C-alpha cells in the first residue's frame, strides 16, 4: 500500500479545535502532526487589569475544566502577594476541584471517549436479558436490570428507526476495530444516558460554593461563600447535607458504574496496552493541598518527574526548568525563533506563515500550529492522569500503589501496559475512584473545624492594593484533570504587568521542536499505531481522546507588554 496523507479536522468529542494530519502506510501510522487551529489572545487582554479579577478572565480559557484556571490564578496572585488562605477555603477549593475531576473524567469516558470503543449500532442486536445478567456480575448498580436495558434498547431502536441519526450520523459503526459483544455495547449505551443525568446532579456542588456551573465564582484570599449555621443565606447544615449526598452519589456512580465499565471494556482491548505510548517522560506538579499550598509534602497527588519510563526514580520538579519554544508555531521571538523562554520572561507575537485558507495539508509546512512547544530541561513531557498515577506509584503512594496493582491484576497484565493509550484511559479511572473516596474525608475535616468554631473562609489583610509591594511575581500551580497547569503573574503598581499560562494541552499537543522531538500527541500516534482505513480514522480518535484534549486551554498569547502585537501577514 502506498503512503497515504490523512487529515482529521475537526477532531470531535474534545474541547476546542484540533486538526490531526498523518501519513499512513500498510495500515500503520508513519508520521503525525497535531495542529491547534484556534487563537484567542487572552493574556494580552489581561495586561493592566486588577490582579483580583484575573481568575475570572483566565477561567474563561476553558468552560470544560471550568475550575482549574480560576484556582491556578488565585494561587498565582496569592503566591505573589504572600496570602495564606484559611483552611476552610482550601478544603472548599479541594472539594470543588475534586468534583470537577470526578464529573469531568466520567463525562470524558462516556460522552467523549466511549464511542471510540463502543459500537452503538451493535447494541441494537443485544439480548437485554443477557445484558442484565452480565451487568449484575460486574456491579450491584440497581439500574442494571433487564427492564432498564430493554427500555434503553427500545429507545435506541426507535431513534435509529426514525432515520434521523443526529449526533450518531456517519459514525464509524461496523468498523473492524470495534470488538465488544452487543451486550457490552448496550450496557455502555445505557450508562452513557445515565451519566448525562448523573453529571448534572453532582456538579451542583460547584453551585453551592460558587453560585453556578460552568464558571463558578472564586476569590483571591479564599472563597466568597461564608459559613454560618444559623443563616439561610450561607453554608449551613442544609447545604452541607446536600453536598454530602452529592459526594456519596458521585462515589457510588464511580464505583458501581464508571469503574466496572472501564475495566470490562478494557478487557476486550488489551492490545491497546502496547499502542500509543509515545513520549517516555512524565510530569506532575502535584495537587490537592491538604495543608497550606506551600507545604509541598502535603499534596494528595504528589509532585515529580519520571524520565524514560524509569519507575525506580522520581525526579524533583522545578518550575524554573520550564521553557517554551516556537520552532513549529506561528509566533516569533525577539531573541530569534530557536530561543527557549521561561514564562517569567516569556513573550509572544503571533506571526501566521501558513497557507491561505482553505487548507489542504499543513504537514509540508515548517510551522503548522498555534500551540507552542513547552519543554522541561529540553524534553517533551506527557502530563495528565497517567503522569500523576506514575509519579504516585513510583513514590509508593499508599492509595495509588495498591489500586494500580489491583487494576493490573484484574486485567492480567504487567505494569508495562501503563505506557500506552489504554494506560492513559485506565489511569484516569484509577484517580477518579481515589478522589471519589477522598471527598468524604475532606468534607468531614471541614465539618470538624466548623464544630470547633472555625468558620473562616477568607483572608482579607492583603485585599487592598495599598498593602501590596510596588512589584511582585507569583507562580500558581495546579494539577488539573488534563494535567499540570501553571500560571505566572507579575504585578506592578497594583496592575497585571505580565500574565502567562502553560497548560496541560500545551504540553500534550506541543509540536516538533528544533531537535525534531515530537510532542506527546504526535509521538503517541507514531508509536506502534494502527490505522486500518484512512477514510475512517477510528484508531486516531482512540489515542487522541486518551489524552482528553482541551484545545482552548492550550492556546494562549504571552505578550510581555501587551501592546506590540505584531501584525500578521498571510503569506
Amino acid at each position, binding site marked *: 500500500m502506498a503512503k497515504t496523507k490523512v487529515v482529521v479536522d475537526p477532531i470531535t468529542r474534545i474541547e476546542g479545535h484540533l486538526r490531526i494530519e498523518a501519513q499512513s502506510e500498510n495500515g500503520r501510522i508513519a508520521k503525525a502532526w497535531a495542529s491547534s487551529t484556534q487563537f*484567542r489572545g487572552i493574556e494580552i487582554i489581561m495586561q493592566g487589569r486588577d490582579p483580583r479579577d484575573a481568575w475570572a478572565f483566565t477561567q474563561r480559557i476553558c468552560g470544560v475544566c471550568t475550575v482549574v484556571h480560576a484556582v491556578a490564578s488565585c494561587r498565582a496572585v496569592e503566591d505573589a502577594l504572600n496570602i495564606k488562605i484559611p483552611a476552610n477555603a482550601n478544603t472548599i477549593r479541594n472539594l470543588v476541584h475534586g468534583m470537577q475531576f470526578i464529573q469531568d473524567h466520567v463525562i470524558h469516558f462516556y460522552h467523549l471517549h466511549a464511542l471510540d470503543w463502543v459500537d452503538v449500532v451493535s447494541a441494537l442486536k443485544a439480548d437485554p436479558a443477557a445484558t442484565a445478567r452480565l451487568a449484575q456480575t460486574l456491579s450491584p448498580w440497581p439500574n442494571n436490570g433487564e427492564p432498564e436495558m430493554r427500555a434503553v434498547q427500545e429507545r435506541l431502536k426507535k431513534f435509529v428507526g426514525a432515520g434521523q441519526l443526529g449526533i450518531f450520523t456517519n459514525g464509524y459503526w461496523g468498523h473492524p476495530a470495534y470488538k465488544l459483544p452487543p451486550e457490552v455495547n448496550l450496557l455502555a449505551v445505557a450508562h452513557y444516558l445515565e451519566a448525562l443525568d448523573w453529571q448534572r446532579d453532582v456538579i451542583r456542588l460547584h453551585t453551592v460554593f460558587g453560585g453556578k456551573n460552568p464558571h463558578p465564582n472564586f476569590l483571591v484570599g479564599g472563597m466568597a461563600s461564608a459559613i454560618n449555621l444559623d443563616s439561610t443565606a450561607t453554608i449551613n447544615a442544609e447545604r452541607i447535607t446536600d453536598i454530602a449526598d452529592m459526594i456519596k452519589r458521585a462515589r457510588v456512580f464511580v464505583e458501581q458504574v464508571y469503574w466496572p465499565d472501564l475495566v470490562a471494556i478494557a478487557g476486550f482491548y488489551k492490545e491497546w496496552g502496547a499502542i500509543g505510548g509515545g513520549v517516555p517522560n512524565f510530569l506532575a506538579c502535584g495537587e490537592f493541598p491538604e495543608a497550606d499550598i506551600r507545604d509541598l509534602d502535603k499534596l494528595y497527588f504528589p509532585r515529580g518527574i519520571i524520565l524514560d519510563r524509569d519507575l525506580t526514580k522520581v525526579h524533583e520538579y522545578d518550575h524554573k526548568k520550564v521553557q517554551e519554544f516556537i520552532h513549529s508555531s506561528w509566533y516569533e521571538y525577539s531573541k530569534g525563533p530557536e530561543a527557549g523562554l521561561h514564562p517569567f520572561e516569556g513573550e509572544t507575537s503571533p506571526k501566521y506563515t501558513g497557507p491561505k485558507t482553505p487548507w489542504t495539508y499543513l504537514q509540508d509546512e515548517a510551522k503548522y500550529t498555534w500551540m507552542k512547544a513547552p519543554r522541561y530541561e529540553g524534553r517533551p513531557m506527557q502530563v495528565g492522569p497517567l503522569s500523576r498515577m506514575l509519579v504516585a506509584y513510583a513514590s509508593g503512594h499508599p492509595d495509588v500503589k495498591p489500586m494500580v496493582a489491583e487494576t493490573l491484576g484484574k486485567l492480567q497484565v504487567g505494569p508495562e501496559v501503563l505506557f500506552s493509550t489504554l494506560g492513559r484511559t485506565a489511569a484516569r479511572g484509577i484517580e477518579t475512584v481515589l478522589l471519589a473516596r477522598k471527598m468524604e474525608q475532606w468534607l468531614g475535616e471541614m465539618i470538624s473545624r466548623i464544630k470547633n468554631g472555625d468558620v473562616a473562609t477568607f483572608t482579607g489583610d492583603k485585599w487592598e492594593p495599598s498593602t501590596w509591594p510596588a512589584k511582585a511575581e507569583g507562580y500558581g500551580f495546579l494539577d488539573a484533570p488534563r494535567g499540570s497547569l501553571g500560571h505566572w503573574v507579575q504585578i506592578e503598581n497594583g496592575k497585571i504587568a505580565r500574565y502567562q499560562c502553560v497548560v496541560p494541552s500545551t504540553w500534550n499537543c506541543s509540536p516538533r521542536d528544533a531537535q525534531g522531538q515530537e510532542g506527546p500527541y504526535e509521538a503517541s500516534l507514531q508509536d506502534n499505531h494502527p490505522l486500518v482505513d484512512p477514510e475512517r480514522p477510528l484508531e486516531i480518535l482512540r489515542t487522541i481522546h486518551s489524552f482528553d484534549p482541551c484545545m482552548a486551554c492550550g492556546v494562549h498569547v504571552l505578550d510581555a507588554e501587551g501592546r506590540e502585537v505584531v*501584525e500578521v501577514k498571510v503569506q
Partner: protein
Amino acid sequence: MLNPSRYAWTDTETLGAHLESRGVSRRDFVKFCGEMAVILGIGSTAAPRVAKALQSLKRPSVIWLQLQECTGCVESVLRTAEPTIGDLVLDVVSLDYQHTLMAGAGDAVEKAKQAAMAANKGQYLLIVTGSIPTKENGIYTTIGGRTAKDVLEEAASGAAAILALGACAHWGSIQAARPNPTGAVGVRDIIKNKPIVNIAGCPPIGDVVTATAVHYLTFGRLPAVDGEGRPLFAYGKRIHDQCSRRAHFDAGQFVQAFDDESARKGWCLYEVGCKGPATFSPCPIFQWNTRTSWPIGAGHPCIGCTEPNFWDTMTPFYGRLPNVGGFPVERRVDTIGMALALGAAAGVAAHGAATVLTQIRRRKATHQVPETSGDEGERHG
C-alpha cells in the same frame, strides 16, 4: 418549563412511530387517514398520501457551530433539567452537527453537516457558540481548514433562525475585551439577514437555552426580545429588582468585606462590587443547576456577564458602583438603577458610559422599562 415529551404527539417524533409506540397499528392509521381525507374533501383515495405526509413529520434539524470559544456554553446546556440533554438530543430535535458530542470526526462529520443543511434548507435552527475573529482574514479560528467566518456564513445562509448562544456569539465576549487582539465579533456583526436571538451570559443558564429552543419548536416562532436581542421571558428584569438580598439594600445593610459579620448574615453585596443594579439577567429567578443557587446566593457579587462589553464596563469586578447618595426605601428603583448605571459609567470604567446608558435608554425607548410606575413589580416587554 415546557417539556414536550409530556405532550401528546408533538414534533418529538414521527407521527407513525409515535402512534405505533402507543399501540396504533399502521392499518388503523391508514384507515384514520382515509376518514380524515374524506372529511377534508380530498377523497379517500388520497389516504396513503396523507398518511405519508403525516408520518414523515420529523424532529427539526439543529446545526450547532462552535467557533472561537471555551465550550462553557455547551457544558451549560449539558446541565439542563427540563428537558434533559438526553431527551433533547434523542426525542426533541435532530442534532445533526455538534463537535462535542458527535461520534464521527473530520470528513465524516463535515459531510453529515452538508447533508443536513441540504436536506433542511431554510428550515434548520442554527445554534452558534463562540465569537468570530475578523483580523488577518479570520485566520485565528479554522475548522476543517476553513475560517470561522466562512463556516458561519455558509451555515447561516440556509438557516431558518439563529440562536447566538452565550456572550461570545452575542458580542465577542472575552476575546473582544480590550484590546481585542483577534478582532473578535458576535454573530450579529456578520449575519444581517436572519432572525437572531441572543442568549446572553458567560455562560447563559442552560435552561434558558433549552427554553428558547422549546419556545421556537412549540410555538413556531422566536420569543419576543429586548433591544439587545435577548428573550424577554428571561432577560426582562434587572438582577437588582429580583434579588433575594434586595431588602438589605433597601435597609442599607451592606457587606463591607468578604467573610465579615454581615457577609455571614447574607447582606447586600453592593459595596463589594455587585453589578446586579446594572445587569438584566434571569439568574435570581431561574437560578443555576436545577435551581440550586446563583452567584449572589453563594456570596459573590454579580459580575454583569449578561451585558455587552462587561469585561471592560463592569471591571474591576470588586469596584463599587458609585454611591447614589442615599437611597430611601420609597425611592423608585428605576431612578436608583439609572443613577447607578450613570455612576458605574463614570466611576468604574469611563468608556463604559455609553454602553450602560444606552442599555437603559434602549429599554425605555422600547417600553421595556416603564417611564412612570413607582411599583418595582412586574416589567412589561
